[in-house]
């Protein structure tokens, strides 16, 4: 009987979501039905207490601040500066300026929590510059779509905060754990670009005028603002001076200072970034509210416990479970955005993950990687949407050229599985 009701609830959830009801409200609605069916508790009071608790929790305060910081930086000349500072160094590597996409995204990811924002901020500079110099569209768009996803893996990261709050894992630890996988993944992307360039040398335009070493070094001064911001934010977390939330506050102040120094800080850009950040946070918060209530309701139904018992009864090897979950998330990611995917599944999955003996920090990085893949898979992938808006190319065209990078992300998951130290080494050496 309970099994039927649970199956009915899951079907109802997907039907309501699929019909186009706002995600946060769909979750709350289904949670309500579930609680009404399975408990005698006062549903409405439990709902608002749960939502109030999650809305005002201290750990979550990092989220709106990092979102606001991203909105401020999006409105500065930071990406322009980064292109100027990076380009002279990359002209000698096979693939030349294509690497500005990858390294640009890697660096910007270290001050931005979002994949789509990273993609948009770097792309608005590199895409026109690469086109002007005659780089083929397919490879510049493909590498940008893939590298943009590093915005999630390299801290700060919105999705890591969401996961950390759901799974009750230290956000600072998650952030630091994402650094090495992020750099390795960026390395894989660069290796792919080099391989492509060696195979198609005729498609790579000639280098710009070469500069002397001192000239290059002088051009690098443009990187100083972004690097100091990274040091302030990530450095303060790694050394234990600041919590993730405090680092976020420092980041907001730092980006305001950068904007002011560059002369981009007007009353208009300030209020635009504030309003944009507030609404973007509000959008995510509504999903989180619905999810917190759904998690409560699922707990009463006992779904997480039953699922854990069932999966453990299957005697899957950990690798098999990871592969199954990866396939499941890739399919889910075709229809849902990353945040909804994480909040929807974590409440149910966590007991299983703990019972199977996975480290929750490791698993968090795994989830972030899988969400990254979802960003570049059609029909729902936010990096694809962003690039569609910027290039006017068809979404399947962009997805096709991002596909090799998608495969590299799968390689990265396997690498992380067999060498878990990639995620655990840095957090172990953190202070505080």
């Amino acid at each position, binding site marked *: 009987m309970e099994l039927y009701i649970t199956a009915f609830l899951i079907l109802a959830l997907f039907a*309501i*979501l*699929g*019909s*186009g*009801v*706002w*995600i946060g*409200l769909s979750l709350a*609605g289904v949670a*309500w039905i579930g609680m009404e069916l399975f408990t005698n508790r006062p549903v*409405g*009071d439990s*709902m*608002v*207490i749960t*939502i*109030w608790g999650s*809305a*005002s*929790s*201290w750990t*979550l*305060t990092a989220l*709106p*601040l990092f979102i*606001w910081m991203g909105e401020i930086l999006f409105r500065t000349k930071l990406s322009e500066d980064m292109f100027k500072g990076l380009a002279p160094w990359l002209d000698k590597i096979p693939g030349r300026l294509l690497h500005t996409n990858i390294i640009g995204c890697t660096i910007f990811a270290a001050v931005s929590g979002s994949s*789509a*924002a990273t993609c*948009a901020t770097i792309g608005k500079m590199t895409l026109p510059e690469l086109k002007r110099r005659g780089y083929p569209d397919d490879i510049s768009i493909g590498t940008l779509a893939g590298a943009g996803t590093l915005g999630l893996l390299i801290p700060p990261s919105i*999705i890591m905060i969401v996961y950390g709050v759901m799974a009750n894992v230290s956000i600072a630890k998650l952030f630091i754990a994402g650094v090495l996988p992020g750099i390795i993944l960026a390395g894989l992307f660069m290796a792919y670009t080099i391989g492509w360039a060696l195979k198609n040398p005729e498609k790579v335009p000639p280098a710009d005028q070469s500069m002397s070493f001192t000239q290059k070094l002088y051009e690098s001064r443009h990187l100083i603002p972004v690097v100091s911001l990274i040091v302030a934010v990530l450095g303060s977390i790694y050394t234990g001076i600041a919590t993730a*939330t*405090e680092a976020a*506050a*420092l980041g907001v*102040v730092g980006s305001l200072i950068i904007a002011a120094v560059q002369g981009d800080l007007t009353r208009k850009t300030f209020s635009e970034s*504030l*309003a944009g950040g*507030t*609404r*973007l*946070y*509000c*959008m995510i*918060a*509504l*999903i989180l509210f619905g999810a917190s209530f759904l998690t409560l309701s699922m707990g009463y139904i006992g779904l997480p416990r039953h699922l854990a018992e069932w999966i453990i009864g299957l005697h899957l090897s950990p690798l098999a479970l990871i592969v199954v979950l990866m396939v499941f998330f890739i399919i889910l990611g075709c*229809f*849902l*955005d*990353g*945040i909804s995917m994480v909040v929807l599944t974590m409440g149910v999955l966590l007991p299983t993950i703990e019972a199977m003996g996975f480290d929750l920090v490791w698993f968090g990085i795994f989830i972030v990687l899988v*969400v990254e893949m979802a*960003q570049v898979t059609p029909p*729902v992938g*936010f990096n694809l*949407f*962003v690039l569609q*808006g*910027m290039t006017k190319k068809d979404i399947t065209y962009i997805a096709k050229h991002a596909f090799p990078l998608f495969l590299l992300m799968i390689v990265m998951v396997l690498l992380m599985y067999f060498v878990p130290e990639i995620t655990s080494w840095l957090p172990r050496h953190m202070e505080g």
Partner: protein
Amino acid sequence: MRNFLDRLFEVTGYLAGLFMIGTLLAVLSSIFGRFIPALDLQGADAYAGYCMAASAFLALATTLRRGEHIRVTLIINRLSPAAYRWLDMFCHLLALAVSTTLAWYSIRLVRQSLAFNDVSTGLDATPLWIPQIGMAVGTTMLALAFAVDLVDVISGVKVREEPKDGEPAHIE
């Protein structure tokens, strides 16, 4: 009436922005309070949380009216205009029901916190009904916004939104 409500949603959205600044200031006070005790608010953590909550709830309505709350449009966007309108009406009705319930119980929460004299367990010892007002006001605005939206859909003012060019969604 509609214009008045839209103005009201703008005002609460504006307040949400101020509370976002409040969140920042509360966190900053806890950082700098370590060095300069005069700046240290007792229980800054809790104040940051209250400001964040108020910011999220108060922005709900204006975010909805700008079409920025996320929904799965995969199926609905492939329908004919007439079918789209019917399904959109269904979505709005369901959303109106959920948001009204949320508003109803949020107001009830404020009244109960007041009646039972609920006080925060943190250092701040704030009577909880005060920050919870933000939740009650914000969710009420959201329910009103859904009502206005529903009227717009029925009267044909609001039609399918075409994806905007240029302006990238900064989501995630």
